[in-house]
């Protein structure tokens, strides 16, 4: 008699757990992933955020200096970052020398391109001497 009652209780518990699990699963499926913004530089800043990096508000800067269509600069975790969009990927790659002028005077600097977009990182305040943060930034940008 006791055994029968016990087995009934076990069955009820299993059924409840299954219903709860199903509900949670459906809930998770219902959650929508944040869409990547299409605008510039919002799309690049989104990539930084996704890589776990906090960025300040980016302000537009003179694109002619870097031979670009549009440029914006700001700070990511204390590092000076410039992002520019070019007409095509070839122009972006070819503008490395111009972009490097942004790094002048900094201890560390680099230029990376991804399609039409180029990113310049400079560390004028010796924030990241080991380059661990810069490595994270590069990873987030190139992903």
């Amino acid at each position: 008699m006791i055994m029968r009652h016990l087995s009934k209780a076990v069955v009820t518990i299993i059924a409840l757990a299954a219903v709860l699990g199903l509900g949670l699963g459906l809930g998770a499926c219902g959650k929508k992933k944040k869409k990547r913004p299409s605008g510039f530089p919002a799309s690049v800043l989104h990539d930084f955020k996704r890589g776990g990096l906090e960025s300040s508000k980016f302000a537009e800067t003179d694109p002619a200096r870097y031979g670009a269509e549009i440029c914006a600069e700001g700070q990511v975790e204390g590092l000076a970052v410039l992002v520019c969009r070019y007409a095509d990927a070839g122009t972006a790659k070819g503008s490395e020398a111009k972009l490097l002028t942004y790094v002048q005077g900094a201890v560390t600097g680099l230029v990376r391109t991804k399609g039409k977009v180029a990113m310049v990182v400079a560390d004028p305040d010796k924030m990241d001497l080991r380059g661990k943060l810069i490595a994270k930034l590069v990873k987030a940008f190139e992903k």
Partner: protein
Amino acid sequence: MRLAVLGTLTALLTMVYAPAASASSVWYSGPHPIDTKVLKGMCYIPGSHVHSYAPVKPLLFVKAGRHNQFVGDPVEYEIEAPKHAYYGHHPLFWIDKGHRGKNYCYITGPHHHWYKPPKHLKFKHKGNVHWYVGGHPDWYVKTHPRATQLREHYHGIGIPLPHVTVSAPVGFVGLMVGAGWLTGHYMLKWHGGGWHGSGPMMYRWHGDKWKRPKWRRGHWNSPRWRARWKGHGYGKGHFKKHGYKHGYKHGYKHGYKHGNKHGIKHGKRTGGKRHAGAHRVMQRTGK
């Protein structure tokens, strides 16, 4: 006059401050040690980047295009840095884009590098150490005796090295380093013009350099070995009595020389190999 003085001063000032203006002009590729005046440690930035400082020890860098690439042991600068253990010489695949190119690591014995070897190169992983078993190219042999600076650098500094408790895998070519001894179980010997053979070889540290004993232990021509085996084996009678070397030398040279010469001299050369055996010579003279 004043203008000329001012001009000269301006030019001088420009010369003095020129390096500061182009401070970020030293190119690096991949992780490397930071200038010790700035900070002791490794820079973790992957790929191409610039710094305001020059390579801390030019010896530990290889120039690939405009980039300085670190080829040393990261442990010298940061013990916790990412590292993989290696033993002996191997290609610097991270400079030659994952292939065996023109750059080689000449650090003898156990050491570390930042990078893990690619799967397509012939590295064997044994005892948590990577051993290059792909064989060394010809130019490596020529470069090897001269590329001693890197080895000497690491012999002189006390840095934590990979602890190797296993013997070298089959195919490894290099020196085995023990406490006070270098034992070349897979050692290539230099015979004026090329590296040959392999076998046990014991080296001993003589204060300033490793010295090889006069005879390789167990070598067939070593005095001890000859004394041990004289009169044993290699035929009967003459050979056994006088030892292998003596008998072989006279027997072979004598027979070959006279037989061959005789045959060529007195018989007609009807083709075939120039250095044919005795049987061939007999045939020729018979005609």
